[in-house]
């Protein structure tokens, strides 16, 4: 899958869940850099991604994504 296209789609999910229309993300974006991305919204983001792509992340990997790129890797592996 085209990573750039995926990044754009995921950015839209983040914008929707975090209610930040102007949010600009890269594969290196981390929760520390994005103010509204905290432990509460992390779970909501994960659920939104799972719903959109019809996949399921494992409970072990969800808290361990270090950046958006790692999330994309896990997603691509399931598509």
């Amino acid at each position, binding site marked *: 899958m085209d990573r750039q296209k995926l990044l754009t789609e995921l950015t839209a999910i983040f914008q929707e869940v975090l209610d930040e229309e102007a949010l600009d993300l890269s594969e290196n974006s981390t929760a520390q850099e994005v103010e509204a991305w905290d*432990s*509460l919204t992390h*779970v909501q983001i994960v659920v939104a991604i799972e719903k959109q792509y019809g996949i399921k992340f494992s409970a072990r990997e*969800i808290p361990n994504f270090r950046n958006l790129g790692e999330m994309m890797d896990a997603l691509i592996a399931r598509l």
Partner: protein
Amino acid sequence: MLFTSYPFLVFLPLVAGFYWLMRRWYKGQNLLLFVASYTFYGWWDWRFLFLIFGSSLLDFWLARAMGQSESPQKRRLLLYLSLALNLGVLGYFKYANFFLENLARLLSAWGLPPVLEDGPLSIILPLGISFYTFQTLGYTIDVYRYKLKPSRNFLEYITFVSFFPQLVAGPIERAGNLLPQFLAKRSWQKAHLTEGLRQMLWGFFKKLAIADTLAPQVNYVFAHHEELNGLSLALGALLFTFQMYCDFSGYSDIAIGAARLFGFRLMKNFDFPFYSSSMSEFWRRWHISLSTWIQDYLYNPLAINRRYWGIWGVAFALLVAFTLSGLWHGAAWTFVLWGGLHGMVLAYEALSKKKRKRWSRQLGGTYLWVSRILVFCFWVFTLTIFRAQDLPEAWSVLGGSLSRSWWGGAALPLSTLLLPLALLVFEYFQRHRAHGLDLKGYPYPLRWSLYALLLILIFESDNLNRQTEFIYFQF
């Protein structure tokens, strides 16, 4: 040995002096820290040493066995064993009487014979047990989750568990942060000394000049809650808020500063919580080592497990995690209620996030300050429940401060508020710095005048070596 006692003021420089004399031999330094830590802890009661040694040995061994196994079933079994033994010991020392008392009450309500005919069991709560149990549990869970390799060096591990600056009341350290520091060589730097001493001075000031000065006033209000007027009760609750903050954050500053003298960096435990504009922000700034522990090992697994409940899953996980965090503080319904109330407010905040953001955009600065004041008031309200001996006392203080007269003056001098309010203003301007007394960039005469002023206030308070324990020692 208390941080604020004379023996500690001799002990600390002595240990630090020998420690830096051995700077070419870091294993010797670790051995010294181990002996010093066990001396520090055994100063209270040498019998506690057996328990902490047993707890360290157990988790060291279980994590090693976990590391040597690739079988998920065996690893899980070892994890459950660690959880059962650690929580079992904690449960026995901390919750046995609470459980039996409530069971007895329930049985007598049903007309059945009581279980505690001879009164409560005589159990002494080993100091710091909640803190070091969580520290060792965190280590085992991290090894189970493949986040950490099991330690291969028992001396370093046992010193990590008992490291005296943070043993009794935290910060609850993560093995991933602290253990590697024991395995690395340490180099002497003057900055460690100055940074450490400065943070310790700030901690001593908050504990001795503020918390211990307020303690008798607060004790008076809570002991006489039935006869005092509304103003006195409200003032008592407000003063306890400052006492608690200065006591606990003061302890953390002394702990972090003392560890710095040995070249160690402990995690931040307080980050100016009183200027938070939401309770979620408050919990990112108050007792950070516990709230992140709860988040990583309790909230996250629960929220992930219940993620298909949508936002209600988040609310459920918050409520459970915070109620249990309340119970961590002690075996009483006041703590359960305190934790539950925080869980509920955080759940509300999670559910209303978008709406609150909209209000914030529309109202700007007014919204920020109103939120800060509301957060502070909610904290005073819940902390009164936390401080009360039981629920009827909590209702009496809270209800009385609202329903009883505010006329006729307060039973306490209003001047007791002066120093806490000065602290609140001073820390507001310092709130983006590492700690309250981080004065980098300030002119030399100003810095030294401030140090002198703090020392005068500390000695003036006459609270040094009075054996007043820190509030969090009871947890």
